[in-house]
């Protein structure tokens, strides 16, 4: 092996290494190939050529010829450091928190310059000309940026920023792919409501089919814009579900999105993951609150490392190593400053009727007007993620200290992906942790107080914890009500309100905090909420406000005192009649439980 060959190898490795530096700002398409080439070829050269050569060279000159070369010894030492750090980066990587990883990264980076310098000192002939030619020949041109196109559709306002007409299955990435490095976050999401928006959500499936029957097949797009972005952008016309043999698998109790993991193993990226996947949210570039699903997506311009889409296990392993050795680009391409703002969530959490533009859900609009939106005072300002993506323990927000990536940096407040909101039920069927987080959050929302005067029982409910109405979201399908039991001295119930009937429905005397939609004839719309024309009632509690419910107790004076009163603030995610309808299509669906958010007991000893 000639010396010159070795020098060329080293120069090539050095060149392909430094081109990855951000100062060169080379286009991603070149970057990923250069990175992959650098890593794979360097590993090959180091093991098969460089190390054997250095051994022979050292033996020949230091032992046989007894030559003394300080630069040679330094060069050998530096080479050792570089090879070691390189292999460390390749095999273990530099995901953030690993000190050896960070040391390896900087060693590999800076020592390579020193090594290059020492190489010149050590060489007999100067190679300035060679280097100059090499540098000039590697001038890189960046391709021009792409233009954005705008789709204007009333049902869905998704804009594909990359200017394409539609996406194909391969443009989407199965979320299970993210699991290998973001295991905890993946598992949180897998049993959360954001994962279970389509095929695993029986309520949604029934409603989408009902909407299609009522308003035509095309109307599905109105639902799918937010519930099923991957299907809408790949021009699927309806949401589909999984099959296992001749049966529908019982996806209600599947934890950890195992079917998704299996799907990735079986079909790679060609099988489309329906619903809101990791990259749906993490590739949104812009949002507004001016219509349904009014967000912009950019899937095709994301910076994928070499072999990232490969289906072969070896290639997949390699691609993970490429990411891990220098993950900054990966991180940047899936994060965006807007992700921390509340307006990011607005594009889906404000819903409008497509024709009349009437508001169906206005969670973001409610937050905007609430005291939680206080940008002038950062201590009082609370964005969506401050409650819904913050870890709870013992009923209090306790930011999770830990990692979001395997081996990543330790963060003080890992944004958890349980997406706790109100729906403890569907996520709770799969995972108790998810359910627990949501119930804890629900219990922070309201405070009860109670007084009894002149035969009147006044119960006030204050919305203390929610930066939006209580309840919000599809509050026509939410039940939040007061369960009141008044007993006399003989423990006999003398007054009650808000009990469940035998069939599970809420009794007529209950006063749920909700809004009721009516059609043009002022009849309640029931399940057909898209028929909404007139608001029949709105008894929800805005953020920070109190609603007082007065119950008149007849013959209060003649009762046997002391009285004892128990008031519960109860919550049920879906009314029984809704669940009963859905159970026609999904018989395996259990009934959602009633959750008591607050309970207050009062003894009334004297006649007042």
């Amino acid at each position, binding site marked *: 092996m000639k010396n010159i060959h070795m020098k060329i190898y080293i120069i090539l490795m050095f060149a392909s290494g430094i081109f990855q530096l951000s100062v060169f700002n080379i286009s991603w398409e070149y970057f990923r190939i250069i990175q992959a080439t650098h890593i794979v070829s360097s590993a090959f050269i180091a093991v098969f050529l460089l190390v054997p050569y250095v051994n022979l060279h050292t033996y020949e000159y230091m032992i046989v010829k007894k030559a003394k070369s300080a630069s040679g010894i330094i060069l050998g030492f530096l080479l050792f450091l570089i090879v070691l750090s390189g292999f460390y980066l390749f095999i273990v990587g530099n995901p953030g928190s690993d000190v050896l990883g960070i040391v390896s990264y900087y060693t590999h980076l800076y020592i390579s310059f020193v090594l290059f310098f020492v190489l010149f000192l050590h060489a007999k002939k100067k190679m300035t000309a060679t280097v100059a030619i090499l540098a000039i020949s590697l001038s890189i041109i960046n391709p021009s940026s792409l233009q954005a196109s705008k789709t204007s559709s009333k049902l869905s306002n998704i804009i594909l920023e990359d200017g394409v007409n539609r996406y194909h299955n391969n443009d989407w990435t199965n979320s299970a792919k993210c699991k290998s490095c973001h295991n905890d976050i993946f598992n949180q999401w897998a049993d959360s409501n954001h994962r279970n928006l389509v095929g695993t959500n029986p309520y949604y499936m029934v409603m989408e089919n009902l909407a299609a029957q009522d308003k035509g097949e095309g109307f599905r797009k109105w639902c799918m814009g937010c519930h099923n972005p991957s299907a809408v952008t790949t021009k699927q016309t309806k949401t589909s579900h999984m099959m296992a043999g001749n049966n529908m698998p019982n996806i209600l109790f599947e934890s950890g999105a195992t079917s998704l993991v299996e799907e990735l193993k079986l079909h790679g990226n060609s099988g*489309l993951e329906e619903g809101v996947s990791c990259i749906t949210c993490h590739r949104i570039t812009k949002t507004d609150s001016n219509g349904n699903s009014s967000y912009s997506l950019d899937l095709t311009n994301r910076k994928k490392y070499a072999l990232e889409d490969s289906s072969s296990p070896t290639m997949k392993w390699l691609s993970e190593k490429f990411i891990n050795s220098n993950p900054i680009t990966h991180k940047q391409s899936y994060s965006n400053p807007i992700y921390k703002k509340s307006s990011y969530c607005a594009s889906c959490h404000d819903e409008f009727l497509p024709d009349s533009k009437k508001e169906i859900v206005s969670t973001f609009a409610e937050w905007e007007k609430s005291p939680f939106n206080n940008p002038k005072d950062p201590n009082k300002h609370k964005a969506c993620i401050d409650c819904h993506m913050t870890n709870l323990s013992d009923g209090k927000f306790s930011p999770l200290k830990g990692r979001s990536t395997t081996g990543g940096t330790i963060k003080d407040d890992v944004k958890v992906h349980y997406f706790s909101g109100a729906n403890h039920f569907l996520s709770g069927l799969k995972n108790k942790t998810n359910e627990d987080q949501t119930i804890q959050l629900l219990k922070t929302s309201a405070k009860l107080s109670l007084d009894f005067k002149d035969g009147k029982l006044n119960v006030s409910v204050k919305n203390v914890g929610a930066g939006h109405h209580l309840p919000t979201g599809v509050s026509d399908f939410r039940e939040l009500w007061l369960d009141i039991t008044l007993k006399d001295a003989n423990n006999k119930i003398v007054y009650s309100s808000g009990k469940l009937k035998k069939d599970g429905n809420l009794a007529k005397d209950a006063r749920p905090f909700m809004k009721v939609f009516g059609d043009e004839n002022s009849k309640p719309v029931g399940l057909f909420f898209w028929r909404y024309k007139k608001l029949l009632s709105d008894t929800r509690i805005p953020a920070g406000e109190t609603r007082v419910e007065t119950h008149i107790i007849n013959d209060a004076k003649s009762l046997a005192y002391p009285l004892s009163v128990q008031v519960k603030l109860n919550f049920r995610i879906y009314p029984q009649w809704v669940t009963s309808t859905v159970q026609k299509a999904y018989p395996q669906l259990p009934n959602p439980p009633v959750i008591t958010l607050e309970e207050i007991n009062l003894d009334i000893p004297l006649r007042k």
Partner: protein
Amino acid sequence: MSYFLKVGVFLFVLLFSVSLLLPHKARKIYDDNELRQMVLARGLASTPKNKAELFKLHKNDVNKLSYAKIKLGKELFFNKNLSKGKDVSCSTCHSMSKDLNVKTLYSNMLTSKTNDANDCVICHLSDQSGTDRLLSSLGSQGTPHPFSLNTQSILNTSLAKYLTWEGNVKSVEEQARLSIISPHKLNLSEDELIKRMTADKKYKKLFLNAFEKINLQNTSLALGAYVKTLITRSAYDEFLDGNNSAISQEAKNGLSNFVRFGCNGCHAGITVGGQSIQKFPVRAYNSIMDVTNSFQNDGREVGSFGFNDGVAHSFPFENKGGYMGKEGKQLFRVPILRNVTKTSPYFHNGSVKKLRDVVFLMARHQVGMSLTNQQTDEIIAFLKSLEGDIVEFNIKNGDI
């Protein structure tokens, strides 16, 4: 030096001659009328839009259409008494509702007091697809199909030359007879059939209106007559009948692709399929790999290659049930593509769920092409234009 010159000249001549072999004609873009003429000239045709056209189509049938037969056939089609266990009817597998005018089937079933529908029917009945959407069919008393074969749609089958997966049946009447007596279908013997129908006054009367006596032969003739009225009409038919704006430009490109790539060679005729028996797969390549490797189509990947280390199969998907087609030679009746968008899952055992994957496999194994994303999109747009509702012919007494 002269050596290099010779090599250079050789390479030039070689490349030049190869370039002559490459196609250099620009792709022909058909305008709407040319496309229609080209398609009609190749035997594709539109379905009847009224009863006069339907009767004309069946003018020379052995089983003459009559109002009484159709009326009886329709009653029989939805009658569960036609199965041994009294649990399934023809319409259980060839899923459709009796009254095509009811547009609120789904909400009716959601709110009905009784619930005799299984999970699939409640959502898929309103599709009116003529198939149960299961992977493989289930007969009376839950008997599975011995080869795990997928139920094909009954719609438009009266216009096909061959029926069933292997194409051994030539008429809907014959198939009706076989479906009644097959042990894995309705599983009803002729004696039992006659006994049950004679006992039922309503059916006895209907039978005697249409025929001289109650027997298996007449039952299948009546069912056959009814099945002949199960015809769908789609946007594609409107286009063939002269309405240029009936289908999108993408679907027109798809139709053009469909013909240019030779798909219509097998998926031929008024039914777009069902007219011949062909081998599948025609091309096995190196060997047909497991479904795991079949759908990889990584357009943008730089270094995507896989090793042929999967399990070899007779089909580019798992052959659950072990069915090998007619005479075990992988010969199949070409499926009807009308309403193909409503009849997933696909292939003889329902192994492939998505239409896009089917188009990919058919192009690869049958016509030997690897389609671009755009070509696939266009073909799927065309297949969507084949989707249509059952025509309501409103045949009345005295029409025929």
